[in-house]
């Protein structure tokens, strides 16, 4: 057994919340540079330029990239030989509480979805746990803004509907979202499992580094085809027209039931944030 303390975890999560909200990943920066060079619309090109300038200001001045610093979504992979001194969930929420306060991040979480009073500290986080062999603890913080989150879609297809129905569904979800999720976007697609598993996979797909395609050949081909079709929609940067609507389409799959074909689409804006640490 290896012991990890409450304080180690809270402190790590605090740092991750601030870093994720102020520093965009190298993969997103590179994708924006490529898009800037390739964008056909002059206004679209200007917009991508402003987004790049904004990211530089945020990083240099340690201020949030976007005012929507999100609901903290935390992915935890915990080795079964790890003993956590103090509650793990409490430690993560304590880290979120400190990070959002110390980083001058916006507190966007309400306690009850219907009564809607702000919790004042951005907790609770949405936490996903995965238990694996070993004695390591891996934590990824992915703040999720709701301009894009609200554009999510889930559909339970019949097996007979097949891949063509999935393509149509993903493209229509992006088309319907239009300018709302702040294009250029990252599109996460989850196929398989159950209703909630497909949604989880779509979220997880957003965390994959841009430029890394699926290792499954047919899925990698699907990702490329969807990206091309989405960029042909003409929605463009901020929805004002252009050939950069999405930076990437990432598809994750899981085995499913003989009777079903669940598919979920989760969209991220260009502020595709995720930062990780291994303890």
């Amino acid at each position, binding site marked *: 057994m290896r012991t990890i303390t409450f304080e180690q975890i809270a402190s790590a999560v605090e740092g991750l919340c601030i870093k994720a909200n102020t520093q965009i990943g190298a993969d997103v920066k590179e994708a924006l540079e490529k898009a800037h060079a390739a964008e056909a619309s002059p206004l679209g090109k200007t917009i991508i330029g402003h987004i790049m300038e904004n990211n530089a200001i945020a990083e240099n001045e340690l201020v949030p990239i976007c005012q929507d610093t999100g609901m903290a979504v935390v992915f935890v992979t915990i080795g079964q030989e790890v003993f956590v001194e103090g509650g793990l969930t409490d430690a993560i929420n304590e880290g979120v509480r400190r990070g959002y306060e110390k980083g001058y991040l916006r*507190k966007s979480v309400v306690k009850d979805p219907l009564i809607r009073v702000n919790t004042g500290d951005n907790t609770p986080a949405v936490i996903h746990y995965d238990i694996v062999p070993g004695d390591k603890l891996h934590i990824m913080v992915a703040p999720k803004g709701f*301009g894009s989150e609200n554009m999510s879609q889930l559909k339970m297809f019949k097996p007979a509907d097949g891949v063509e129905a999935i393509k149509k569904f993903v493209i229509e979800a992006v088309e319907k979202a239009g300018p709302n999720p702040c294009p250029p976007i990252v599109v996460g697609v989850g196929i398989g499992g159950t209703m909630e598993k497909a949604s989880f996979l779509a979220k997880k797909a957003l965390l994959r580094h841009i430029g890394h395609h699926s290792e499954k050949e047919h899925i990698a081909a699907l990702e490329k085809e969807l990206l091309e079709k989405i960029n042909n929609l003409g929605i463009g940067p901020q929805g004002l027209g252009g050939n950069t609507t999405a930076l990437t389409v990432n598809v994750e799959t899981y085995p499913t039931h003989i009777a079903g074909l669940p598919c979920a689409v989760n969209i991220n804006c260009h502020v595709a944030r995720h930062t990780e640490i291994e303890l």
Partner: protein
Amino acid sequence: MKAVRLTTPLTQEALRQLKAGDTVLISGTIYTGRDAAHKRLVETLDRGEDLPFNVKDAVIYFVGPCPAKPGQVIGSAGPTSSYRMDTYSPRLIEQGLTGMIGKGLRGPAVVDAMKKHGCVYFVAIGGAGALMARSIKEAKVIAYDDLGTEAVRELVVEDFPVIVCIDAEGNNLYEQGRAQYQRN
């Protein structure tokens, strides 16, 4: 693209000059408000009471900023999705609101009210809150302090960068821009 400079208040005469696709730099006073604040503004009108600011010829910015760091006027302050204010916007436009700044689609009832009463919908760049905060020179909460980030703030802005998305005639840059680059 040469930017049009405008100073608030935004009069009917000034807004009629603005066309979808124009890039604009706004200076002067603008007001903030998002979901919860809009709900209260409309409830105030329903009770027949006065709004906390003069809405005639005013520009409202749909934003919920980050807290200001020491030495800053305001934290990151980019636009939030406008469609969530569609329920409330026509009531404010009837009262004389002439400009809205946000991002994303608007419903037909909002566009109808804009054409009928004279109002322009500007978009700012979503997700570029750090950049936009630089154009905000002063900020103070003037109503609904208890709403925190959703409180109504009076902002003094200088060369605040926006794009005319829907003009007072109903021309829509989202539709025009997309049509120009759509393939298949």
